[in-house]
């Protein structure tokens, strides 16, 4: 009887913990632009990312100035001329993860494919987007991985003629986050 009670409690606690919010303040986001002239890569290791496991609501946000480039001149051009970081300091995605119905949230197997549908805002422009992603249970939380493409022109990011050949028309973006339970 005692054993049954303990088992029931463990089961309940795992169900409850899988229903709450999960978050990170240090997710990784990288973008990569490849042209015949040069490859440009920037990384930001301070992505804030939140998933509500019960509703599927999903958000991430990053400061534009936290993207780090190899060369300072690239970083300066990115912030001052392209994304105008002083005017539009943040990039955000707000939406929901679809395809979670029927998934045991307490034990999502590796490589489970989902789609995050929502609004991506960059440079003050909001676009509806569906991001293909994988999700899996890991270390009491969730590991999320997504790669997608963005077209700078769609976000009114103007590339000056002098460097037009240096910047790809389509930029690859990779998002990785290990979310842990939000216990408050």
């Amino acid at each position, binding site marked *: 009887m005692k054993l049954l009670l303990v088992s029931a409690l463990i089961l309940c606690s795992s169900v409850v913990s899988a229903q709450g*919010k999960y*978050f990170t*303040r*240090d997710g990784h986001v990288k973008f990569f632009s490849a042209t015949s002239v040069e490859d440009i890569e920037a990384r930001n*290791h*301070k992505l*804030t990312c*939140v998933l*509500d496991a019960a509703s599927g*609501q999903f*958000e*991430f*946000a*990053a*400061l534009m*100035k*936290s993207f*780090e480039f190899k*060369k*300072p*001149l690239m*970083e300066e051009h990115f912030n001052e001329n392209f994304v105008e970081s002083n005017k539009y*300091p*943040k990039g*955000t995605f707000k939406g929901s993860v679809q395809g979670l119905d029927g998934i045991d949230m307490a034990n999502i197997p590796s490589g489970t494919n989902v789609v995050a549908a929502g609004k991506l805002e960059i440079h003050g422009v909001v676009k509806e987007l569906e991001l293909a992603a994988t999700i899996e249970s890991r270390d009491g939380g969730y590991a999320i991985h997504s790669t997608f493409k963005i077209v700078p022109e769609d976000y009114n990011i103007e590339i000056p003629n002098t460097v037009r050949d240096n910047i790809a028309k389509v930029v690859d973006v990779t998002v990785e986050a290990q979310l842990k339970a*939000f216990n*408050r």
Partner: protein
Amino acid sequence: MKRTLTFGALTAIIIGVLVAYQVSFKDHDDTADIEAAHKLNCEEVVQEFLDDETAATAKYVDQILEINGPILAIERTDQQITSMKISMDELYVVNATLQNPFEGELEENSEIVVKGVCSGFLGDAESMLPGGVVELKRGSIIK
């Protein structure tokens, strides 16, 4: 006279090319060598952004800040420390990435002083979380 002009023009072109090359391929300045504009406790700086984000942004963003406080969490890449969170509360933190990976040992909850370029503040307006993060890049451990 013509020879002097040609020589002058050539010299100007060479200097121009060298300056352009220097600017284009210059590395980031080493944060450790630059004097901090502000020295603060981690709680103070987060609170300033929470109280008035616009004023704190004007005051701190793009400036080198020297922040002291307890290490909340450490992130390692290839067994080297590449970033850390400084705070006593995981919802209100200073998050610093290091300019150069740190090979020594650091312990969570121990006091640290880090200098870095402030890139801004991510608060609860952007997410479903309370609190917020002051972000530093190209950080350098002072002690």
